């Protein structure tokens, strides 16, 4: 059961972040004052990929809640942090981001740090 939940978390988180990044890049740079945040709230309703990303985040959130009930936190947190590595790879392939050696090394360092913190 815990592996199924973990699969749901990883897939939904990765999909949510890719969709969100893709849609936000299309939208152009957004403001972060009160008006800008209100506009962002409106964008969620108006853009289907953003809406889908929020649905995916909700799936991930509730699956994580269920996972921490079924498995130790020391398993749930580092396992879900695996999304960092997966998203780095997929961002290069799907979003065509320039993921050089330094960015890959940085992501791996952070992943290692997260794994240590979670135990």
């Amino acid at each position, binding site marked *: 059961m815990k592996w199924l939940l973990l699969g749901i978390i990883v897939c939904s988180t990765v999909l949510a*972040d*890719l*969709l*969100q*990044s*893709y849609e*936000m*890049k*299309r*939208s*152009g*740079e*957004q*403001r*972060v004052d009160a008006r*800008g*945040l209100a506009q*962002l*709230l409106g*964008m*969620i309703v108006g853009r289907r*990929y*953003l809406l889908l990303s*929020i649905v995916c*985040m909700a799936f991930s959130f509730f699956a994580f809640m269920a996972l921490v009930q079924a498995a130790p936190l020391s398993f749930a*947190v580092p396992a879900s*942090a695996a999304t*960092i590595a997966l*998203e*780095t790879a997929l*961002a*290069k392939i*799907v*979003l*065509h*981001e*320039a*993921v*050089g050696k*330094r*960015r890959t*090394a*940085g*992501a*791996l*360092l*952070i*992943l*290692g*740090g*997260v*794994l*240590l*913190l*979670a*135990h």
Partner: protein
Amino acid sequence: MLGLERDVALDTSIVGLEMPMGAVGRSKFKTFLLAFVVVMFNALGNLFLAWGMKHSAEPVGLNPLGYVRAMLSPFVAAGIALLILWLLTRMALMSWADLTFALPLTGLGYVLAAVFGKVFLNESVSAKHWIGTLLIFAGVAVIGTTTHQTGLRDNTV
């Protein structure tokens, strides 16, 4: 995948119109500042939520009404409000920077969670935790040396 690659290829031709500031317009300092705000909203939101849920009078279990009642707690409500702000500022961050630049920075949230756990919940922080913290800082520093916005526009980094 969902036709993203085709759409992305089309978008590169109009980026100049949609994002006149382009890859170098938004200063990296401002991007770091926003990333810090995003991390703080997330860490504080989770802290408030955890605090509120731990001090909830009854376990919520699978009962939806339990969750609704829990949301009426000031701490839980504040936590949810902070997490909504986290979502919106994170969306803005995604519009400013690459996913592979912004996402690892949020790893700082794990560091803050450890610090908050020690300060507010009197949890012990082992040597392994400090090493993990150093690794995360090192990773963030390394990623900080890369261009924050390349993505669909520039593949030179």
